[in-house]
């Protein structure tokens, strides 16, 4: 039995100081309901990383749903969205639920940069990494420096992923940044954790995105879009304990499983919503999927292979870097962007997009959720 996409909705990620997380969810979910034609769902699975720290709010499922429908939160740091999609897929595949809303929300901008640094370090191993002074960015910086050393990549090569993301976000109504950046702009931005610069890193922002998944045939849609396969791959939480810190093994595992379940190979994929939280992650994510050989991911941007009209379109609405990265909501934004492409409704449309991969990395690579969407003719 297939799992179908009935509706999608999201708000533009940004600094929404006038709105609570609940308000943001209401906006996004209202759009998803309208898009689906449904008035309610059997279950709400909320994805959120840190509302308790950002706004002192636990019990997130109930906070969002109130008495509308059964609800609970799924959390796996930056891959909370992808994990929530996985949970919804399981709920429907099991036959227990006919319709499930997956809604991501994150409210980051009411806290200072310093507080955000502390909260985001929670995605790493706090006892072994943050305790000794490693901020989350710095873990990615350690990976980036070694990667550049081993594979002769330069800062410019990685920054081209950011340039690509910003280009794809231009005129996209729900993108946080709608401004192109040049490589020169990127190289002039200050180091956050050497060798990663400000423009290597996705922004802190508020956001909410929602998608309604249903059992096959529940809602009649013009375009039938399925969540074809969903899988989780795992690795150590601590970067130092990975056999190879330069491989996102969790990503290789998640994609391999999703690929086996769906029969979809790299060549079949038209849209790659990868986890470009940091430029280095985009390159490594693409390597883990098999788009590039190990150590060659950085060449993809340089060689123009990730452009919208190339073989491997990446971050088609701007990705995490430009569309925004409200952490716990990101996986759902990836799904939103994927479905837009498959419907032919994207601002920068990949011609005849039929299969989209959403790859959502948690922590520095501790867990990856792979969700493959397909348009069925």
């Amino acid at each position, binding site marked *: 039995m297939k799992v179908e996409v009935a509706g999608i909705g999201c708000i533009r990620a940004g600094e929404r100081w006038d709105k609570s997380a609940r308000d943001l969810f209401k906006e996004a979910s209202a759009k998803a309901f309208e898009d689906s034609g449904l008035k309610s769902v059997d279950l709400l699975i909320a994805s959120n990383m840190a509302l308790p720290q950002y706004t002192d709010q636990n019990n997130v499922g109930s906070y969002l749903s109130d008495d509308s429908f059964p609800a609970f939160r799924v959390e796996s740091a930056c891959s909370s969205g992808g994990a929530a999609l996985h949970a919804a897929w399981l709920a429907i595949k099991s036959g227990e639920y006919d319709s499930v809303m997956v809604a991501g929300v994150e409210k980051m901008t009411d806290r200072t940069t310093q507080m955000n640094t502390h909260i985001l370090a929670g995605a790493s191993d706090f006892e*072994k990494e943050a305790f000794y002074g490693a901020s989350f960015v710095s873990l990615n910086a350690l990976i980036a420096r070694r990667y550049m050393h081993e594979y002769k990549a330069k800062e410019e090569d990685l920054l081209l992923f950011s340039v690509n993301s910003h280009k794809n976000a231009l005129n996209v109504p729900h993108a946080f940044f709608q401004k192109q950046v040049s490589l020169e702009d990127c190289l002039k931005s200050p180091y956050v954790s050497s060798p990663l610069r400000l423009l290597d890193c996705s922004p802190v922002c508020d956001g909410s995105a929602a998608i309604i998944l249903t059992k096959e045939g529940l809602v009649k849609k013009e375009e039938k879009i399925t969540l074809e396969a969903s899988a989780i791959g795992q690795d150590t939480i601590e970067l130092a304990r990975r056999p190879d810190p330069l491989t996102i093994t969790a990503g290789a595992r998640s994609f391999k499983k999703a690929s086996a379940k769906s029969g979809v190979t790299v060549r079949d994929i038209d849209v790659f919503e990868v986890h470009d939280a940091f430029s280095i992650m985009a390159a490594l994510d693409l390597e883990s999927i098999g788009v590039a050989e190990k150590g060659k991911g950085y060449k993809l941007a340089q060689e123009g292979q990730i452009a919208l009209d190339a073989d491997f379109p990446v971050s088609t609405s701007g990705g995490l870097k430009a569309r925004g990265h409200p952490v716990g909501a990101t996986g759902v934004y990836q799904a939103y962007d994927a479905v837009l492409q498959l419907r032919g409704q994207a601002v920068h449309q990949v011609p005849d997009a039929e299969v989209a991969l959403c790859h959502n990395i948690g922590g520095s690579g501790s867990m990856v959720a792979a969700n493959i969407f397909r348009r069925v003719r």
Partner: protein
Amino acid sequence: MLNERYMIDGNPEAKGTLYSYTTVFSPIHELEEFSPYIIGLVKLESGKMLLAQLTDCTEEELSIGMEMEMVVRKIREKGPRGLILYGYKFRPAKEL
């Protein structure tokens, strides 16, 4: 001066090579006063990899592959009247 050599010499868990490093400009809580500071990944002689702050050096003096040795240092303080937490850091290995 504290004689740290007895902890380092002959101990494969206290020596290694530098796998990677970075200067942190946006510090973690309770380490603001030390910012910016350097952290690194050190591949120990024993085979394990450890993440730790790098001390007694500037970023310019570091290079991937250089010999490092473990030292005991203060990691953080729990406020002006709280516990002082010590742990390991690494510094460029000293020529003897």
